[in-house]
């Protein structure tokens, strides 16, 4: 009996596959006006979203964004400055600080002593990239990544800085990067969301900063473009499972009955939205299979599990597991996978905390890049590792031989990008001897986002949405593509 039922379900799956989603129904009340000029139903199928066609030949199809929430210290990880050792403990010269604003947490501080990192740096790979001993696994992918040392932002506090990085605006209300992609070029897989978010807890800082759903929100775009939170536990997607006492066959037959009645309605009312609804329910049903299949790591080899460093005790805070899930998602065509790893806010006790943070993420992030490369996916997937800002060269609180803290610093910070048509094995941009100001090749957050868009085949000035009479885009009215890092 059970076997027969299984077969039945499989049959339904394939039979129902022809239900494709109706784009007109999905574009929603708000979208249609903005799209009116752009929409060409045939061209739309080409991108799966609002853009009739890509603006450029795309080098990347998908994005995995490893967001390090809290602001990792560029000084202790990537931005190696031997001269800083000489200046350890000395007051940061006013000529460097230039009277720029600092947060209320250190603005009352009477002195600003430079704190050189206590961690050792070495050059790695053919490229000779300087990487801190805190990131031994990242060091092994030195030739696959592009380290940017001159990211910069105006924001100096967590809420505005993370909101800015993810939405291009310090104040709430704008769509996030993933939402823009979902809107612009849609999903490659009808059975999975275009934009997925996964959150993990760092082990370095127990009083970490809160994060907000607006970081994966859709802003003024229709809500279907918001990121879908994937969670550990039974339901990776909220409300995915049938409740106890309702099994898959019950659900199938319930959908058949619903569908039959809905079709009678569709005939009576002539409302095309009814057919859209029928197909959305079918997609929900398919998700009940596709999502558990996606989150099921049991078919991954032991070697893969070990390469990512996934531990059953969950001590890694979930980041390793999320990295492997991210690979499985891009394999299945999820457009934008956003990982958020918390705990990078080292105002005090930086050395101890950052060790824990790096241990959480170093191995899984490197494994992800290697794994994607081995599977031939890295070429078409952008992997980004970085936070919302860097940290100050001067110590927050007391500076000792083994301990120091660092406040927020937006004038320069480091992150790395791999794959997706970004030049591998280069370090781009230069800061001054204090890792404080940019000496050469600044990359503003808007420039960075413009560059990512470009690799995805999108002109950041042309993926726009009309809201309140104004055309909005991810990069506001700014952003220049950083051509030097394009492969």
């Amino acid at each position, binding site marked *: 009996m059970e076997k027969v039922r299984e077969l039945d379900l499989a049959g339904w799956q394939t039979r129902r596959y022809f239900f494709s989603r109706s784009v007109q*129904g*999905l574009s*929603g*009340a708000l979208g249609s*006006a903005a799209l009116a000029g752009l929409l060409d139903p045939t061209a739309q199928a080409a991108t799966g979203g609002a853009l009739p066609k890509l603006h450029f030949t795309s080098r990347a199809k998908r994005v995995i964004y490893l967001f390090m929430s809290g602001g990792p210290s560029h000084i202790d990880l990537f931005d190696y400055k031997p001269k800083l050792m000489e200046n350890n403990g000395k007051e940061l010269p006013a000529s460097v600080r230039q009277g720029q*604003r600092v*947060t*209320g947490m*250190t603005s009352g501080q009477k002195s600003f002593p430079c704190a050189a990192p206590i961690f050792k740096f070495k050059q790695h790979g053919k490229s000779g990239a300087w990487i801190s001993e805190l990131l031994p696994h990242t060091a092994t992918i030195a030739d696959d990544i592009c380290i940017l040392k001159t990211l910069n932002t105006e924001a100096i*506090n*967590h809420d505005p800085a993370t909101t800015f990085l993810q939405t291009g605006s310090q104040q*709430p*209300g704008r769509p996030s990067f993933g939402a823009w992609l979902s809107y612009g070029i849609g999903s490659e897989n009808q059975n999975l969301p275009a934009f997925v978010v996964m*959150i993990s807890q760092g082990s370095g800082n127990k*009083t*970490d*900063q*809160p*994060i*907000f*759903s*607006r970081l994966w*929100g859709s802003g003024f775009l*229709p*809500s*279907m473009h918001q990121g879908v939170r994937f969670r550990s536990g039974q*339901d990776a997607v*909220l*409300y995915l499972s*049938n*409740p*106890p*006492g*309702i099994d898959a066959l*019950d659900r199938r*037959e*319930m959908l058949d*009955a*619903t569908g039959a*009645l*809905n079709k*009678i*309605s*569709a005939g*009576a*009312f*002539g409302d*095309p939205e009814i057919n*859209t*609804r029928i197909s*959305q*329910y079918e*997609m*929900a049903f398919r*998700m009940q299979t596709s999502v558990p299949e996606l989150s099921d790591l049991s078919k991954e080899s032991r070697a893969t599990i070990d390469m990512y460093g996934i531990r059953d005790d969950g001590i890694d805070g979930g980041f390793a597991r999320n990295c492997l899930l991210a690979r499985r998602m891009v394999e299945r065509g999820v457009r934008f996978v956003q990982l958020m790893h918390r705990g990078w806010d080292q105002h005090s006790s930086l050395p101890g905390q950052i060790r824990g943070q790096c241990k959480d993420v170093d191995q899984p992030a490197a494994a992800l890049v290697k794994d994607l490369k081995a599977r031939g996916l890295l070429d078409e997937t952008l992997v980004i590792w970085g936070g919302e800002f860097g940290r100050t060269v001067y110590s927050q609180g007391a500076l000792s031989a083994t301990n120091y803290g660092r406040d927020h610093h937006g004038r320069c910070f480091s992150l790395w990008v791999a794959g997706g048509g970004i030049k591998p094995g280069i370090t781009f941009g230069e800061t001054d001897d204090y890792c404080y100001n940019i000496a050469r090749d600044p990359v503003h957050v808007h420039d960075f986002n413009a560059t990512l868009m470009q690799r995805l085949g999108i002109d950041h*000035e*042309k993926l726009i949405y009309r809201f*309140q*009479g*104004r055309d909005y885009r991810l990069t506001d009215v700014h952003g220049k593509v950083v051509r030097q890092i394009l492969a």
Partner: protein
Amino acid sequence: MQGRGKVILAEVCMRRSFIITWLISLANVATLPAQSVDFNRDIRPIFSENCFKCHGPDDNARKAKFRVDLKDKALSHPHAIKPGKPGESELFLRVSSTEESELMPPANSGKKLTSAQVDLLKRWIAEGAPWSEHWAFVSPVRSPIPTSTGNPGGSNAIDRFLLQRMKKSGLNPSPEASRHTLIRRLTLDLTGLPPTPEEVAAFINDASPLAYERLVDRLLNSPRYGERLALDWLDAARFADTHGYHIDSGRDMTRWREYIIRAFNFNLPFDRFTIEQLAGDLLPGATVEQQIASGFNRNHMINFEGGAIPAEYLNAYIVDRVNTTGTVWLGMTVGCAQCHDHKYDPFSQKDFYKLYAFFHNVPENGLDGSKGNAMPLIRVPDQLQKGRLELIAQEIAEINKKLELPSVETSGGQLAWEAIAGKVAVDPWQTRDLQVARSSSGADLEKTGDGSLRVTGPNPAKETYTLGWKQQGEAARAVRIEFLPDPKLSAGGPGRSENGNLVLSEVKLKVNGKPGNWNKATAGFSQSGFPAEHAIDNNPRTGWAIYPEVGKPHWLVLTPAAGALSGDIQVDLVFASIYEKHQAGRIRLSTTTSTPQQLDNQPPKLVQDALAKPREKRSAEDNLALRKYYREQIDPTVSPLQQRLGKLKQDQEGIEKTMATAMVMQELAAPRETFALVRGEYDKKGEKVFMGTPSFLPPLPEDAPKNRLGLARWLTSQSHPLTARVAVNRFWQTFFGIGLVKTPEDFGSQGEWPSHPELLDWLAVEFIESGWDVRHLVRLMLTSSTYRQSSVASEIQLKSDPENRLLSRMSRPRLQAEFLRDQALAVSGLLENELGGKSVNPYQPPGIWEELASRADGKNWTAQAYEQSHGHDLYRRTMYTFWKRTAPPPTLSALDAPDRETCTVRRARTNTPLQALILMNDPTYVEAARKAAERILAVKGDEKDKVAFAFMLFLSRPAQAKELQVVEKFYRDRLADYKIKPEKALKLLSIGEAPRDETMDVAELAAWTMVVNMFLNLDEALTRG
């Protein structure tokens, strides 16, 4: 009407015959005579979209000194537009040019005119280039109601305007919907809930010709009506239960939400409502309710992120108020002008800051809210508290009356007291002559004329002053150290730090060379977090400080643990906290032989001085002071009253402490200065500006108060071009799905041209002239024939008017998120009908908040961990669901509820698989299905009767035969399965906290539960119909 089909199917049959008529009339669409060009409808949008960016209102972006947004500028240009002569008009030549270097708009702008647009411009110039002001900036006037209706009777003004336009497009109105559809539509629209089967039956059987109107009136008077209209307002007002930024802890605006519900239920005229929302606090003799109403502009997000800069956020709050007020009342996207002149509308950056100035005078903090509501706020008692406070106030008044009398001495008591009190020797503080006065750092402690020591010389990070004297004769019972201001000190002292503060970390005592202890330290003033006891806690890291009361004298009194001090006394003042250089700059030490108790009981100086004088030399003030002091402190007949008074005041304070608060608007006595901010940056002040209205709109009347009240009255003046139109349009959107102006947030030149401008204006004038009567306006809309039309759409209608802007049929939008859950609760009988009250936490999967919140710090703030409600609070209407901004209820967000971070006046309507998962699997809906199943199972009769009841309960209509078949088969299959698997049935029946009716058969109940689960997911159940 009875003859018209009771079921939809019958309606459909009728539709078929209509289609033929339409086919004929649609043939006319193509041959409509070309309309003459209308500047506002046809030309301005072309200019706005393609030209304003470089030739519009923004002075800084203008190219070639040509401006095409203003008539005078555009037509006075020597070559641009020659009325009547397109061939000589540069504007036309440029837009029609084939030379790339000539062509406008230029290729690099990304803009391109269609040939139809070029042709329109040509015709417009040929017709003499007639110009009119932007329609929305001119006061609305009533157009005559079109007379030829062609519609049989019963049509009101709305229908006639609509019909006129429909006819032009070759469409005809649809027939009236069935009564079943009508009651479901009306009840959902006016209450957000479905009708009960009894209500449906009553309406179907109401033979009165006014049955429909009576139904409308019944629903308009339902308390649920206030809740329903309030919901839209909560979106506009960005109402939420948390502050929104960063930590996102809780706030409580319950009373404000209750005000909104009441305002709609009492049909508060919209002009009064507006005034109270924007400036209730400024009304003469403002009531508590009116003050609460003003909280509209406190609903914005508030921040207290550690390290954030207060001025930056204060600016953000005010900008939010301007934007929200602009969207809600002006229908204008004023936010564009925060950084630069508006690109499309004549709204300058200065205009933005003129409005900003109105909202800039609130006594608030840039960073606030960590403990709940942010300043300014008022305390608002509930009914019980209110009653108790009134009783207490009454009794206090009575006691005070008794205490006042008699005003002259009648008993001998006071005289006797005066005789004794006058003789009590009061030991005043004796300034000590210090034998030892030195500093650990070598600073100079220089004696001054008043016995104090002035500190000069070295000012190291840490410091200790050692002071010593011989206590001879009577023992000292207390030591007082005074910290005196001095003009030579930074900020006037008394500290030597930059800001005049000092942090006294420890006062150490030695008596005859041996360490001693203090038992108490008191101070005249202590900085928050730096109490006097920190100076004697043997912890050098903590201390007593006096900020921000710098430049003033301070004192610290210390009493020794031994009770008395004599011999060689040494006192060390230690300044060793992390606050460097925070030592005292001028000090004076004195002692007293009086006990602390004696000191405490000392009459005030005024009384002491009076006592010292002979009776006959005392002034009237002296006598009054003595009399008062005696009555209040000494008189034995008065002290019980005093005690009672003290108790009452204590009670009063106790109640006030536990009272709810409401964030409100208030006005600083002296307005803050406002500057236009360069590029909108909070720290870049430009030109100084004053409160005022945008220059393209009527000015504030001369005699209007220059504050928010003046602004609110200006908005609601009879001739204001925007307020009524914008409000009417939003109500229209609520009931017809899309506004007459499709962009309710933008009535400017980038907004959409109204589908029916004459109707919009007619309704706006009607609204104003009715006394801004919201209920009248809603009634007018809902009793129109248009609203009563069937929502069945023909292929021709879908093709020629897919969005249904012409309303030749009724729209059938999906129910909004809140109504879907409310409907499920209502049909299950679980819904609680309490009006108002605090927000509640219904079912939610674990971890939704906690995964995002700050972890270890979480206990410092509210709204960090989700504590699910139980019982009554699990089943409240969804508008009372706790709204946490950084992690809104996922079931509502997925169904298009806005994030409530900023003002929203239009919700999206999407159709997604995640919505399907929620409606199928969320325990809320499964539990509701189970409870509704109990109702079905309780219906007497056979399976058919039960299914019939289900159709009435969920869809408000009888079933068709083929529908019955589907449902019955589904039921029987489920029943068969659950019969052989009772444990599976029990699992389903165990979902949710509502108790199960255990008298019912488990398999049957489970099978019906599945049937209800199916019903609640039907398209028809999810839409308005």
